[in-house]
């Protein structure tokens, strides 16, 4: 089991992200309904915001922004895993732990749909959070 303390915490977060990745991979396989739904990269991101979020959290992502150069910012103003925790700055420090799995989830779903990415999350004030997806092109 990972040890407590900063190095242990990093390992724990990696483990959580890994679990999310595996779940995302599977969801990426079984969720998409239509073959032609993903004509371009932006369609895949929209799928994450609508269908993946809908299936896992029973709601949609609140906003999707992009610089059209492979970086996307997904914003959820009322993230279900944080909604019961706080409304504001209490628990801000611990909030990222609860986002690690979800980052993996996004990365895993993208992976099944043929997109390699790096996903990070940040919280400025509960329960709102942002997920940053950076497409990795080789």
């Amino acid at each position, binding site marked *: 089991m990972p040890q407590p303390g900063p190095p242990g915490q990093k390992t724990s977060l990696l483990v959580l992200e890994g679990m999310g990745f595996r779940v995302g991979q599977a969801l990426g396989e079984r969720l998409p309904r239509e073959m032609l739904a993903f004509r371009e990269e932006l369609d895949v991101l929209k799928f994450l915001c609508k269908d993946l979020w809908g299936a896992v959290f029973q709601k949609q992502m609140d906003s999707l922004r992009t610089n059209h150069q492979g970086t996307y910012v997904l914003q959820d103003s009322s993230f279900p895993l944080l909604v*019961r*925790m*706080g*409304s*504001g700055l*209490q*628990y801000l420090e*611990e909030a990222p732990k*609860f986002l690690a799995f979800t980052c993996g989830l996004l990365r895993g779903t993208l992976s099944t749909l043929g997109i390699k990415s790096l996903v990070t999350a940040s919280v400025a004030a509960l329960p709102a959070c942002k997920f940053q997806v950076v497409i990795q092109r080789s």
Partner: protein
Amino acid sequence: MTVHNLYLFDRNGVCLHYSEWHRKKQAGISQEEEFKLMYGMLFSIRSFVSKMSPLDMKDGFVAFQTSRYKLHYYETPTGIKVVMNTDLGVGPIRDVLHHIYSALYVELVVKNPLCPLGQTVQSELFRSRLDSYIRSLPFFSARAG
């Protein structure tokens, strides 16, 4: 009509939460002693009420009143106790106390992984939602009646 204050205890007598809205007189003892006194009294009354009941018990101890205030009591099977002091005009409020337990305590404290159970509740969200809920009650008025 108004709500004076509210106590929330767990099955071990730990006071999980205390809020007051209109309290004109203090007990004259430390807060820790006050919580112990309240919990001890409730424990005794519950047991007294069930022993001395001339009929089969239904809900057990529900409320007591004095000439100035009324104390309402609600207990869950898990031993969580919600105690609210209101003025005399307030009727049975079991549904209100149950709401405090199920929609506030369970939703915002039990389901919050960062809230350790069995200790005073630190969650700001719980405190502020509880405060809003009490203030929204039809028998709460901003000025003590």
